[in-house]
């Protein structure tokens, strides 16, 4: 197994140019999903989805303008992969999570399972799609298209351990410069998804960027769910038996 690779997206450096969105679409041949003027901000992409694997969020605040390029988190404990019934979703040698489009049968279970709302079904071809961290480029020794195209190094690609160290140093420097609101999001291996393979440096609460503040991999509670279902199943058999015993 190769080293675990990841993204560190430093939103303080993002200038909202959307080169990442364009490069992703070009390289991965992701279909057009329309430009919609949403009348809320400069964001005419909207959200991550089957046809949007990088999404630049624009948050207009009183004295500043926040921009952030969102992407699949490639979770350590990935709900989409856990719940996929066909094995179409798999973990690569780079510890990333990828859909095999020739296996996916479009059951759609991964879609509500993702705690970040990343993966979605493309209704045109009936299959689930999301960021692959440019699996083909990684295998060829190249960096993902979005990181390559980013003109400000807001999107940084590399071994996850290195990125975590680099991000800690960056936060310390920003704090020293007076930007005390700078904080990392998703990097902690003890969080609800066991640490994200794509993490962020944010300047406000995650929910402001459309990110869940404290996501959990849904399958964490699967044992508890089956136990309750087991009790209900036994109860059903017992209750039905009682219906026959009572009479005669």
């Amino acid at each position, binding site marked *: 197994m190769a080293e675990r690779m990841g993204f560190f997206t430093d939103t303080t450096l993002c200038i909202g140019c959307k080169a990442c969105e364009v490069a992703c679409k070009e390289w991965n041949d992701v279909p057009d999903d329309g430009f919609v003027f949403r009348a809320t901000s400069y964001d005419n992409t909207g*959200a991550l989805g089957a046809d949007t694997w990088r999404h630049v969020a624009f*948050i207009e605040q009183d004295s500043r303008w926040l921009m952030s390029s969102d992407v699949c988190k490639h979770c350590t*404990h990935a709900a989409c992969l*856990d*719940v*996929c*019934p*066909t*094995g*179409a979703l798999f973990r690569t040698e780079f510890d990333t999570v990828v859909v095999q489009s020739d*296996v*996916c*049968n*479009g*059951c*759609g*279970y991964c*879609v*509500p*399972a*993702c*705690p970040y*709302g990343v*993966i979605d*079904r493309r209704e045109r*071809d009936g*299959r689930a799609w999301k960021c692959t961290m440019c699996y083909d480029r990684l295998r060829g020794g190249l960096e993902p298209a979005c990181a390559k195209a980013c003109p400000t190094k807001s999107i940084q690609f590399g071994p996850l351990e290195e990125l975590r160290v680099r991000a800690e140093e960056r936060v310390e420097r920003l704090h020293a410069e007076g930007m005390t609101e700078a904080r990392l999001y998703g990097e902690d291996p003890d*969080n609800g998804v066991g640490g994200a393979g794509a993490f962020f440096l944010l300047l406000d609460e995650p*929910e*402001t*960027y*459309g*990110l*869940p*503040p*404290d996501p*959990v*991999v*849904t*399958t964490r*509670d*699967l044992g*508890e*769910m*089956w136990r*309750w*279902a087991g009790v*209900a*199943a*036994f*109860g*059903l058999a017992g*209750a*039905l*038996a*009682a*219906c*026959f015993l*009572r*009479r005669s």
Partner: protein
Amino acid sequence: MPRRRDEMVPDAEFRSYYGQPVIKPPIWHEPHMPTYLYLGGLSGAASTMAAVARLSGDRRLEFSSRLIAFAGGTAGAAFLVAELGRPERFLNMLRVFKTSSPMSVGSWTLAAQGGLTAVGAASAVTGVLPLVGDAASLASGVTGTLMATYTAVLLADTAVPIWHEGRRELPFLFAGSAMASAGGMAMLTTPRAQAGPARAATVLGAAVETAAGAIMERRLGMLSEPYHSGKAGRLMRASRVLTAGGGLLAAVAGRSRALTALSGLAVTAGALCTRFAVLEAGRVSAVDPKYTVVPQRERLDAGRPASVPGR
């Protein structure tokens, strides 16, 4: 009344990205998915009822139950295949067996249930290979209990707050509903003199469904709002009235054919309304960022962030 309760809960303060959803809503279609949930439950409870009827010697009720179990499972499977984005690849469901995926476990359960109930029904109708038919029918009594409850795990094992946080009660809601559905359908297809246990199952199932639903809503707190308002709220209220009414009627339905028909149809409609209500409430719960953000923010503010111990 539900409306008054809504007004008493102040709107939670929270921040979001222009009010957009954080998670994606389930993309399952109506009527496919809710109808499958109903039919799967019906088939599961009916096959368990057939097995118990076999053991107690209620041959006429066993006959009806076997046919219901087969019809429900087959029709349910058809709805499930039609629901897929690539229906021609439905056999990929049996490509692997994954215990981490309730849909994988469910697909294998449905495959076993479908095969066993088909053999049981074919034998009951033709009289061929009665021992094989009995063995299959008894085995489907076991798969049936899983069939009637796994769908609760299927929904709870998502990031949808109203489903995930209802994970304790959903299996009882669905098991009760399945029991009432099977009792109601057996009542409609069995002579009244032999349908006593089916009526009892209808009463008991309706009571369990009603109680589980009430407990679930209370324990969900603010997250239960979608069950009280809009389309999901209307469906849930209809389900309550139909299920409770049908269940009470079943207690006296032995007296006439009209009462039997009324009761059986009411619990069937109630069970369908339950599934449509749960699906619609899940959609609302996913689309409004409030239900995702507020509980997570409360967790963080209380200094109890989520973790995944032991993995």
